[in-house]
């Protein structure tokens, strides 16, 4: 199963996904992380600008990755009970 990299921006708390060379607030921008991921993660942890960087498992194709856990789907979409606050690239229906 593919994995992607996620975290929260220190300054804002925004949920982020690694887009390859920068971070995005949309899961549709997430890229699959290969073997280079461990070094990337270690660097992020040391730099302490992104809170709780971690890999998560997803299904689907690039541009339409869907996390395998409900928690991460909620995190990607927004509260399931407030569709009006949904983040954009994953709808609350997908939770």
């Amino acid at each position, binding site marked *: 199963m593919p994995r992607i990299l996620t975290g929260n921006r220190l300054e804002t708390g925004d949920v982020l996904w690694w887009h390859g060379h920068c971070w995005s607030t949309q899961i549709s921008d997430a890229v699959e992380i290969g073997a280079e991921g461990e070094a990337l993660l270690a660097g992020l942890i040391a730099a302490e600008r992104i809170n709780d960087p971690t890999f998560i498992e997803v299904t689907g194709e690039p541009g339409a990755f869907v996390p395998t856990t*409900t928690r991460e789907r909620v995190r990607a979409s927004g509260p399931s009970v407030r569709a009006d606050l949904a983040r954009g690239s994953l709808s609350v229906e997908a939770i």
Partner: protein
Amino acid sequence: MYRYDQYDQAIVDARVAEFKDQVGRRLRNEITEDQFKPLRLMNGLYLQLHAYMLRVAIPYGTLSGTQMRMLAHIARTYDRDYGHFTTRQNIQYNWIKLEQFSDLLDDLSKVEMHAFQTSGNCIRNISSDQFAGAAADEIADPRPYAELLRQWSTLHPEFSFLPRKFKIAVIASDSDRAAIQLHDIGLQLYRNAAGMLGFRVYVGGGMGRTPIIGKVVREFIPVGQFLSYSEAILRVYNRHGRRDNIYKARIKILVTELGIEEFTRQVEAEWATLEPLGLDAPQAEYDRIIAQFADPAYEIGAPDTIDLSDPDFKLWVDQNVHAHKQPGYAIATISLKPKSGIPGDASSAQMDVIADLADKYAHDEIRVTHSQNLVLAHVKKADLYAMWQALAAADLATPNLDLVTDIIACPGMDYCTLANARSIPIAQKIAAKFENSISEQRDIGELKIKVSGCINGCGHHHAGHIGILGVDKKGEEAYQLLLGGSGAEDASLAKILGPGFDENGIIDAVDKLIAFYRSARSAPTERFLDTYRRLGAAPFKEAVYA
């Protein structure tokens, strides 16, 4: 209510400046996240699923209209236009940015509010009775003592790195509207046989992974010594509470492991050394604070009847309005559990409406209940109708206090990183079955359903007549069903009924429980909880699982 003097304000201002400095150092990487996190938590700022979550302290659940307007302003300016009132009488905002937090704290401090010690391993918000100062059954207003505790516990140098969080609740009546037996320290104010005012002190109650009902550590401590006595309890806890296992770190575990006799012996020994040190505030300080909780200027001779000819108004009065100690007055509860709503949430517009109504009709005072509702405690009966109409226009007049749709639900996995399952949709789906028929709800009668999204139990599921606990079952959301809890003076802990359910299963199970209750109750007036206590779990279990 209590108003800051120059000293209170100076301390808040210093704390805000200190935290701004700490944030600045973190943003410049001068301190690590591991070092910063306890500091951030001590100022009420969590990192949750979507953003930082801020928990603003509402000391013993009491706030003014001006303060409520500021909470509305915070929602509009720094968040997404709403807030959530919690089971410990605080308010939470879910979309806060760290880089704006300094401005937010400045705004709060302008109206004598803050977010200190609403998180972290320290003494948290002191909670109390939402009817304080208005209820006929209280000995005296418990809130001055909550205020004394608040000051004593704020930035206490010895107790800022406890094994775990510490929660204290204070009441002054035999009716327990603050669940004191489910707190780390619970204090009941009363007069002893000699007429002296003092507290019965409960210790070691709590929910979460190991729910326990508190035990009496001291039958009577005079009010003049309750701060030094609390200090003794905290010191025993700080020294001996477990630090090796976060699930066994609350004081309830220490009390259980030592036994109440040995625990009491240690507290009394510690208190013997502390009491002579002059830690207790003098009578003059008690008098100063008590004076700020004096009765409002009641209108003597205000009409003591209510015109109930409007049937919708009558429904609301029947359900949401309680007797006040003063003739001509009433206590009104504003339900934050409207149809299709989110339990405990209020929009900034609704907060402004409530602030205006408090100002106009309720001596400018609002209370938060630990059932995630709000109370206007000093309302003239003659004003209730006009006030109700204004509430109704803002979707704040749902007449469902303590009924099946008045569900307590923690934010759950829609918001919280600790959760295993979502709780709000469960509450909504249960409520949806009954919310279109207030007469059906009233027929069911008092039924307290409480939903927690994880074992930490912020939804107080162990104190629910029906409790629901979200669990993780191989990566899927699942729910356990518990029965028979109560957070009132007849405290009891809800017990698991049988195997767990998925989301549809738990909704269905609650339906079956209610249907069984209606068929088995001895009279329509017998509450669900009392039918359960009379019949035991077996017939309920059969009704659900057969």
